[in-house]
């Protein structure tokens, strides 16, 4: 997770990417910790408010936001309104207080496990903090072959088989948006007649697409290759006066 100190939380909150959170509960927990109150005392209405604000403002900056975060925002809005309304009569459903309790429990439980996972991982670990060693030099050693292929290998291997079967069933060849040399040659032949004067190659290639550099590169390079191809066949002439200078072509009579 990104390092965020308490002070710069406000200024930096929109630079936080949702991708840093492991789901809505994790984000809620982060916001809750920021309230610096014991989780068992935390105000769920206030927390809901914070979460909803966060999501709304984030939404304005990045339109793409995972559905679960939005669903949680909607649910919190609903919970907040139920908590604020006068106490309802007993219905079949869970009361707003139950839902509040459940959410609080969920937060506390996740927090426990996040702490535990840190404790666990900070234990001295083999090959990171502590090491096996020893040497059997000077002793008689008999080797037994032990096949170490494990369940992971087995499952991975079976998955590869399943996957390759799936792929054969749905083999689709994608249409490439890149500009091909063939296409450039064909197009250039069509406009031959109009290039009787020396003309900058860049002026006769198709219009570049503003946003896509990869496709643009393919347009330029394919047209360049096409011009070489056509000059080799004696249809056009190509010249360049200096290194990296403009490339000119004209129709050869």
């Amino acid at each position: 997770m990104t390092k965020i100190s308490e002070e710069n939380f406000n200024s930096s909150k929109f630079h936080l990417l949702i991708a840093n959170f492991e789901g809505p509960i994790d984000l809620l927990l982060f916001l809750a910790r920021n309230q610096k109150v014991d989780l068992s005392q935390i105000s769920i209405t206030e927390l809901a408010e914070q979460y909803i604000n966060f999501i709304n403002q984030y939404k304005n900056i990045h339109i793409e936001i995972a559905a679960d975060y939005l669903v949680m925002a909607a649910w919190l809005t609903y919970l907040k309104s139920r908590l604020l309304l006068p106490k309802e009569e007993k219905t079949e459903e869970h009361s707003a207080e139950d839902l509040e309790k459940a959410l609080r429990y969920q937060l506390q439980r996740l927090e426990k496990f996040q702490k535990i996972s840190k404790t666990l991982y900070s234990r001295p670990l083999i090959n990171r903090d502590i090491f096996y060693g020893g040497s059997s030099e000077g002793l008689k050693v008999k080797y037994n072959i032990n096949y170490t292929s494990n369940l992971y290998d087995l499952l991975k291997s079976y998955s590869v088989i399943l996957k390759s079967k799936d792929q054969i069933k749905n083999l689709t060849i994608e249409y490439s948006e890149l500009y091909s040399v063939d296409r450039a040659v064909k197009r250039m032949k069509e406009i031959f007649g109009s290039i009787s004067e020396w003309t900058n190659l860049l002026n006769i290639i198709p219009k570049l697409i503003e946003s896509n550099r990869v496709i643009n590169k393919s347009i330029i390079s394919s047209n360049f290759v096409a011009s070489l191809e056509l000059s080799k066949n004696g249809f056009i002439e190509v010249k360049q006066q200096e290194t990296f200078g403009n490339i000119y072509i004209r129709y050869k009579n």
Partner: protein
Amino acid sequence: MVNKDIKLLEAILFASGEPVLENDLKEKIKDKKNLSNFLKELKEFYKDRGINLLKTGNKWSFRTSDDLSNDLTIFKVQKRKISRAALETLSIIAYQQPITRSEIENIRGVQMGRGSIDHLMEIGWIKPSGRKNIPGKPTMWSTTELFIEHFGLNDLSDLPNKEELKASGFLDKRAAIATISDLAKNDDNNNLDNLDSEDNNIDDFIQSN
């Protein structure tokens, strides 16, 4: 003079270079019924040394001492770092095993990122163990011997803060709302019928399916 069996144990444990089954040690020595005394003695002897004798699961091994870890980084095997998601998943499995995937999701409040389970299996820390007897018979996951060994635990009851966690009531695999309904039921013991209704209504929201 040091007892010959003790010397043998020392040599075997040293030369094996990895944990040795207690039973295999027993086979090598003469005074078999004293094995655990010998091991206890050895453990004590190496307690404050640069290498320590440790029991993990049913195996014994010499390993370098914890408090030297900063000075031994030369031996560190560079491994891919483990993600936060995988680590949370691991600790949930460790404390709540055996546990199904959707129970893990109950606790983490999010669908499992692809990669956690298979990554943990690849390291060799978890394994499938049995299926839960509910519709769909989902696989349950447990930790392995290798997990115990790598984390230097005697056994699973040796997990840090396990008792405390249990006492606090957070070792519960159900969706949060299900735990609340239980409390509510204890309060005013009505509708005893659907004690295990962990599905339906609010979970759909909380779990972000």
